[in-house]
């Protein structure tokens, strides 16, 4: 067989590009929340993963109720209908946590480390609440059409040997992420409140002198971070599956994304999210078949040509984090320095 570039590209798109685009969008939405809280409230929020789990849990419970009432969205997952209420509940929890825990330390101007440890306490509580309400097991809540393009249909349509399957959840993830990010950037750049937030992030004292109301900025920050967390969590749950502990494990890639992009920088968080997702998937994908299409017969690889076992995908985000920090300590987009 001769060199077959088209099939090789389809193969790569199917197993690397499409999944990484979806996963990268989920990471980016989560990292945006982390980076906003870091930039404006000035602490590393360890409870963000469990905030995502909480939002997803609310969405799942509502979805089940809607499914029981036979209310759906046709080929789209019912979870979309439940999402607004899930966002509202997550915002309520974020604000409650701020009121009960973080506000006290903020007003005393405690060290960032103290707030980070307090966020560990919040993480414990949220984690326990999610497990008490919905249990520690795998919960599935996706419905509607599973595939937008099915691998078999794609093959018969194009006549290629390789199929390209695109799941509804993947397209939905990308679409929702684009909408959320567009709205967020419009808000931060064009509205008065958004400009106040950016000013507060840049220089708290100057912003306060210029009449920026701190309580409003804090409220908006939590509202945005919690909404993004609920959206990201729901999309991740639809795309993969919902299990409370996996959301804690997302903390590392999300932090890596936020830090690598330059912490406090929204566009950095997005770039970081895609960088982490693409590296993770590209490094753990076995290239045997891909190279089989591209190389002549006698040069085909014998092994799997997998650079890293999938068991170690967590280490990818860590290595990216360390390498970028050593090479460019402020991140790709020059984040907050102190």
């Amino acid at each position, binding site marked *: 067989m001769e060199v077959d570039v088209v099939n090789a590209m389809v193969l790569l798109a199917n197993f690397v590009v499409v999944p990484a685009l979806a996963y990268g969008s989920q990471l980016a939405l989560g990292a945006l929340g982390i980076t906003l809280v870091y930039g404006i409230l000035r*602490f*590393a929020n360890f409870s963000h993963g469990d905030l995502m789990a909480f939002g997803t849990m609310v969405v799942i419970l509502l979805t089940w109720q809607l499914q029981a009432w036979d209310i759906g969205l046709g080929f789209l997952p019912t979870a979309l209908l439940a999402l607004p209420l899930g966002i509202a509940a997550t915002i309520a929890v974020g604000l409650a946590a701020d009121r*009960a*825990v973080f506000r*006290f330390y903020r007003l005393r101007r*405690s*060290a*960032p*480390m*103290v707030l*980070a*440890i*307090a966020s*560990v*306490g*919040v*993480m*414990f*509580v*949220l*984690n*326990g*609440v999610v*497990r*008490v*309400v919905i*249990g*520690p097991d795998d919960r599935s809540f996706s419905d509607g059409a599973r595939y937008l393009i099915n691998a078999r249909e794609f093959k018969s349509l194009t006549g290629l040997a390789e199929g390209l399957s695109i799941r509804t959840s993947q397209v939905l993830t990308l679409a929702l992420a684009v909408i959320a990010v567009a709205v967020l950037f419009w808000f931060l750049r064009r509205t008065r409140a958004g400009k106040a937030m950016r000013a507060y992030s840049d220089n708290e004292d100057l912003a306060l002198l210029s009449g920026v109301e701190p309580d409003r900025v804090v409220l908006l920050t939590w509202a945005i971070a919690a909404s993004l967390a609920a959206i990201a969590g729901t999309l991740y749950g639809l795309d993969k599956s919902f299990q409370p*502990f996996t959301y*804690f*494990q997302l*903390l*590392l890639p999300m*932090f*890596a994304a936020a*830090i690598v992009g330059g912490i406090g920088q929204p566009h950095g968080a997005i770039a970081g999210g895609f960088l982490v997702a693409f590296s993770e998937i590209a490094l753990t994908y076995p290239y045997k078949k891909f190279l089989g299409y591209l190389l002549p017969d006698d040069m085909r690889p014998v092994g799997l040509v997998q650079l890293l*076992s999938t*068991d*170690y995908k*967590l*280490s990818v*985000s*860590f290595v990216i*984090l*360390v390498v970028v*920090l*050593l090479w460019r300590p402020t991140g790709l987009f020059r984040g907050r320095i102190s």
Partner: protein
Amino acid sequence: MSGNARAAIGFGVVAAALLSIGLGQSWSVSLAVLNLCLISAVMALGVNIQWGYAGLFNVGTMAFAALGGLAAVVVSQPPVHEAVSAGGASLLLAAGAACLTVALISLACRRLPAGALRTIAVVLAALAGYFSIGAFFNPAVEAIEAVDPSSTGYLGGLGLPIVMSWAVGGLFAAGAAWAIGRVALGLRADYFAIATLGISEIVIAVLKNEDWLARGVKNVTGLDRPVPYEIGLQRADWFQDLVHSLHRDTLTGLTETESAALLRELVVGASSIFVKLCYAGLFAAVLLVVLLLSERALRSPWGRMMRAIRDNETAAEALGKDVYRRHMQVFVLGSAVVGVAGAMLVTLDGQFTPTSYIPLRFTFLIWVMVIVGGSGNNLGAVLGGFIVWLSWIEAEPVALWAVATLTAAMPPDDPFRVHLVEAAAHVRPILMGVILLLVMRFTPRGVVPETVGRQRPLSS
């Protein structure tokens, strides 16, 4: 109230709780809780050395506990000769190749001027290293894991007494901490926290997946014991005589068969208590040694320097203190203490199960212990270990009891009641979070506050 009085009251409460468990449930349960309290206290001391002395926010405790546990396997298990001869040599070659790669890369970084040439050299060395390590490593692993995979499939250990692994566990953890510190200690405090969190997950992933090392998720069970086995005690004459003499009053006045049956029952119960007492003695000895050494270190000029660095890094640096090296020192020392505790825990369990290492239990819970007890105060960390472990372990039965009482009127198969009973186990993290938040808010210096120095990071 002075710190010592608060510590005395705290330990009094813990003792009362252990006594009431002993009287209410059984002494065996009470001793089991005590043993884990002792191990937790050692771990808390380790974290206190890092956070309390030097203000290092290390969220990777889990990795060091697991490496200590690995030491228990590597030291005490009998060697699998077949596996060693099948893959040992190539494994050594792979390790050699890895060392060579690291040496080449560091040489390139030091000798070559920064620029494209250096980048190319480093990338080339890394690539060559990746492939040459793989060439030795992969066949070795395959050969080792093929040796009787259902019972061994790993290299085995050195076949030494397991108590030695406690020291080796400390060394393993210290070595890992040194390597991790080289990479991560240069980072800012919050990045350092994220980095250690990541490394700890990676260490656990390695332990789960590298079967040749300690069988991965297939677990190593039936580890050697530093104390006698219950069954051996029950057969030993001296032990039977001991139990007999302790229960002389209850045993007299019974018929011979009745008395023999009762004695056997008593001996079985006593053997389990005796074994746990032996463990408690060993663990308490380790705890005392670590506590005394930590206390001496804290009160020495070295400890004063550490607190100075913690309270104001810039000022300490201006006074000529090498902050990076001092941080490395406490990071290695504290991690070694956690490693010792990790080896002790695996010794107590008698098995090494990589899946049991979760951050909630092995990282964040230890943190709660230190902060609740009083960061910077060794006695406080020990007390925190006791209190927090007691509440962690007793939260589930108490929650179950509360659920049973509240839902007593419901039918037993009511779905809401079933759900509540299932959920009772998960109140643990909620309780821990609430304890942590309340302590931070209302007694930010912990139950037994630090006695030296005035400025505390948690109260500022």
